């Protein structure tokens, strides 16, 4: 069936660059102009390659204890020296990075998931659901994050949770303190989005609630979610490091940047063997800074006031 009344064809030709995800291309183009954010992004890519591909090129990847090579300073064989069990620091740094980055990303993903689902539901249904979710979030937000983590970490140590599981539990702990902020953010967005005209149109189409919530409302919050989620990865990596440094997070033999710095706990290591703690310290510092720079860059690039 064809129509008699046809839209002028020329209009369609000029106005439609019709390609998927033009928003993302716009954003990326703007991000590319931001030198500082690009530095952060490039550093993060390098850091990921270093941690996830690097160990394949290392002769010390097995992490075997080597009693003759204990606490040796950097040399041609061991570029960053060795630790108190004779393991290569450079290799351990990569392996620790795998864990730290994974924990940071996983904790972020989990808190984004919990936070956005609860935020969407609270913002859309309002009323009792909203009250319950947001009061719960408030409670979690009023307790300072780190002390809460210390307490949970201490309980875990007390219960003698197997070390293999601790990494997952650390992820859960970090997302537990991470989701309230995201839920609050998403909820506030939903509260205004739900009054928009296109939501009235979805009502008039008789769409089911789960479609309205997760297909129509949630995608509208993605730009801001991305910014916050990026920044959260940095926060999660920091928190994990602090916990692991204090022995309350991921514990050896699983390496993380945090528990590698633990070496600096003894005065002699701190003063005489800086190769033990400077590399992981630098890795944490540089990674978190890069993430924050990238997050700020994304925020600017996605700012609707600077858009179109």
């Amino acid at each position: 069936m064809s129509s008699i009344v046809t839209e002028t064809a020329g209009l369609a030709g000029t106005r439609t660059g019709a390609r998927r995800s033009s928003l993302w291309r716009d954003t990326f183009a703007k991000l590319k102009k931001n030198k500082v954010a690009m530095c952060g992004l490039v550093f993060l890519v390098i850091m990921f390659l270093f941690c996830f591909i690097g160990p394949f090129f290392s002769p010390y990847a097995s992490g075997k204890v080597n009693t003759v090579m204990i606490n040796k300073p950097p040399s041609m064989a061991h570029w960053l020296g060795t630790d108190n069990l004779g393991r290569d620091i450079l290799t351990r740094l990569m392996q620790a990075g795998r864990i730290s980055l994974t924990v940071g990303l996983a904790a972020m993903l989990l808190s984004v998931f919990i936070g956005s689902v609860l935020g969407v539901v609270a913002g859309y249904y309002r009323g009792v659901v909203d009250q319950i979710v947001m009061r719960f979030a408030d409670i979690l937000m009023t307790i300072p994050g780190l002390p809460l983590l210390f307490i949970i970490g201490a309980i875990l140590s007390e219960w003698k949770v197997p070390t293999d599981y601790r990494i997952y539990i650390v992820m859960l702990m970090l997302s537990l303190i991470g989701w309230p902020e995201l839920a609050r953010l998403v909820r506030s967005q939903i509260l205004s989005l739900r009054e928009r005209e296109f939501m009235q149109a979805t009502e008039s189409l008789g769409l089911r609630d789960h479609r309205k919530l997760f297909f129509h409302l949630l995608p509208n919050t993605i730009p801001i979610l991305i910014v916050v989620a990026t920044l959260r990865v940095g926060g999660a990596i920091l928190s994990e490091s602090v916990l692991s440094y204090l022995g309350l997070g991921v514990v050896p033999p699983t390496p993380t940047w945090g528990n590698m710095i633990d070496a600096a706990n003894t005065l002699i290591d701190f003063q005489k063997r800086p190769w033990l703690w400077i590399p992981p310290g630098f890795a944490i510092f540089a990674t978190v800074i890069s993430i924050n720079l990238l997050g700020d860059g994304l925020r600017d690039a996605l700012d609707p006031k600077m858009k179109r």
Partner: protein
Amino acid sequence: MTNALLTIDHLQTHFFTPSGVVKAVNDISLRVREGETVCIVGESGCGKSVTAMSVLGLVAEPQGKVVGGDIRFDGVDLLQLSPLEKQQLRGNDIAMIFQEPMSSLNPVLTIGEQIMEPLWEHLLLSKKEARAKAIELISLVGIPRPEEIMNAYPHQLSGGMLQRIMIAIAISCNPRLLIADEPTTALDVTIQAQILDLLREIKETYNTAILLITHDLGVVAEMADYVVVMYAGKVIEEGPVLELFSNPRHPYTRGLLQAKPVIGQRKKRLNSIPGQVPNLIGLADSCYFHDRCESCMSVCRLKQPELKQIDDGHRVACWLYEEESGLA
């Protein structure tokens, strides 16, 4: 004559606001027959949109409420439906087109996704079938290169094209009634005519009944079979379009018809009806139009006229046409 598809009887929709009860729709009755186009005309703020929203059960909760009357669609009482039944009715049997095509589409979803949604939801089509049907719908509403449009985002299209897309979405499930709330008000005049042509074509092809809301008498003249003139939440005159245009009775309808500019009759000033629609809160028991009416009588300030049949199918609510007016 075919039977009524939509019957609204003595509908009252009120908004309970802090400053008082807004009687946005105050005792309205109308019917739309199968395949018929009924136009609701009136100045803005007279309750046209609220009438439409009441039909779909979308009156803004919690302050808005249908407090009286009933609405029947094909014999089914819409006010008694469960939320699930309402959901199945909307978009499927009754579809709606809004005034602002730009803001009625979700900015972050592609046109294709938004057209396919009701097809999944109501017709339970598979992804592939829905896609094929969506492409067919886009070309049906007269947009070239539908495959390309499927992947476009709303901000990439013009207002006229978006309104066509809205129409495509509205007719996707073959609704029996299409409610169009000022579908052309936000568009350029040339585009406006195209959209009206499209609506008329759809009506003829699918025998869809249309409830068209507008404040533009030009649109009415072009589209309507039957016209309902609303003022301050009430029907003040109604009749078949030719009868009403050639023989308007209510001073308000006359005013509206005179307010429309006519080519070749340039006057110093366009006719307009002095004053404005009264505040809908706490209206007195008078004819709501009395303070703007040039033929206002004493009875008009005291009592409200009822909608009375004067000719075949032509009804008016005005004391000028009531025999008893002299008695009161």
